[in-house]
């Protein structure tokens, strides 16, 4: 228990170091643009594929559950839209990004620690945590919501294509369901979760990379641990945010 409290304390001390004023704004913006580019482009393909698959499956499953003639067929589109916006894309895609972006961040910062590149930054007087991690955190706060919005689009497209190919409901009914009872608040809720999850992914994976002591073995362990912890925190926060916002 004391170890867990120590770990949490170390995490907040690390955040204190990360969120200090960058030493060089020019370098900060250069790194920020690089991170936005690599995070966004690097994750776009996998996010799109998973979203299309998710949209297709949830459409078929929903259509199979609603076979009663008492339930209107537009319910399929409505259910797909609601579940994709409110839960599947923000949470499942964020969990996917833990493995994709998070492990990349842990490996990158961890290998810099192991090869003394972080020490080299400290020797010339740079705040290495802020220099390395802050652009990644800000980039993920910008990129992740965009990725989630794109994934929502692809998930719904996946659902629509499935409807056209399988004929489980008509395309007209599906679109009718998609556009029925739309609440903008659902999108705010989804984006709020996404931003919180993006913060969790980028800071926890950076934290585990930054505090590595040792070599390649410890780097692998840190990677696994950061994925497990970030996933767990995302699931807990998902519950908390849902309880607060809905």
């Amino acid at each position, binding site marked *: 228990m004391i170890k867990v409290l120590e770990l949490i304390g170390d995490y907040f001390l690390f955040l204190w170091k990360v969120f200090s004023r960058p030493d060089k704004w020019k370098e900060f913006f250069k790194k920020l643009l690089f991170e936005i580019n690599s995070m966004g482009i690097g994750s776009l393909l996998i996010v799109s594929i998973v979203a299309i698959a998710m949209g297709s499956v949830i459409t078929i499953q929903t259509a199979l559950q609603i076979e009663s003639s008492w339930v209107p067929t537009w319910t399929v589109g409505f259910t797909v839209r609601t579940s994709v916006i409110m839960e599947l894309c923000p949470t499942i895609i964020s969990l996917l990004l833990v493995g994709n972006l998070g492990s990349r961040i842990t490996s990158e910062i961890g290998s810099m620690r192991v090869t*003394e*590149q972080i*020490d*080299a930054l400290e*020797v*010339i*007087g*740079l705040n290495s945590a802020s220099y390395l991690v802050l652009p990644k955190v800000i980039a993920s706060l910008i990129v992740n919501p965009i990725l989630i919005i794109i994934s929502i689009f692809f998930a719904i497209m996946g659902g629509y294509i499935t409807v056209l190919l399988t004929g489980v409901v008509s395309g007209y009914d599906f679109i009718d369901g998609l556009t029925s009872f739309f609440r903008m608040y659902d999108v705010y809720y989804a984006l709020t979760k996404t931003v919180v999850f993006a913060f969790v992914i980028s800071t926890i994976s950076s934290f585990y990379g930054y505090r590595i002591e040792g070599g390649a073995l410890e780097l692998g362990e840190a990677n696994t641990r950061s994925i497990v912890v970030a996933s767990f925190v995302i699931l807990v926060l998902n519950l908390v945010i849902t309880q607060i916002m809905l």
Partner: protein
Amino acid sequence: MIEVIGVSKYFGERRVLNQISTAFDDGKVNLVIGRSGSGKTVLMKLLVDLYTPEEGKILYDGRSFHHLKAIEKKEIRSEIGMVFQGGALFDSLTIQENVMFPLNMLKENLSEEEKLERVNFCLKRVDLENANFLFPSELSGGMKKRAAIARAIACNPKYLFCDEPNSGLDPKTSLIIDRLIIEITHEFNITTVVNTHDINSVITIGETITFIHEGNLAWYGNKDNVLISDNELLNDFIFAQPLTQKIRDLS
């Protein structure tokens, strides 16, 4: 001159350095020698403020590094260059960008042309004039060390620290690195501190030698008296290899 006065360092309950006092002279190559795990790297990390000592102080020309304000520390940091054991070159940057990095961070008054001129001078000084646009992964071990030296001297440092610069290098490349270190030290009148357990370096470039054994200062001298000392711990270290034992027996 760098003075180390009664410095101790603990990791938890374990005392890694015990009341170390020594001095590193201006314009000389000052070696810190000792077996692996003796505390050499910890001492070097204390010298460059990567660690803070629990006891004692380190004076840079009379300035107590660990007791200065952040802005004053920055001034000393701009006078420090460091060569890490593995080079610690930034993987994502070219060699030119690596050498320019400390200039970008510490020398705001220089124009881009002046920085580039300085980078080219440093790379030429370490015989890497054609490596500007290569990445660290494209260099051999010896070239990486030379690139790291170029980066360390980019800001014209008063103090140069080299942590085991010969580790992982063949004997001939080690000699090249040793020669480079001693030439640069004399040419630019730098206070150079080198961590090593390479006996060749000890007898060729050790203008002062601090021998650390299990965290304690065990001997202080230079390359002229290191081979004739009657210090048992030092002799155990120096004559540990069959080759050096044979040379001793023959002489």
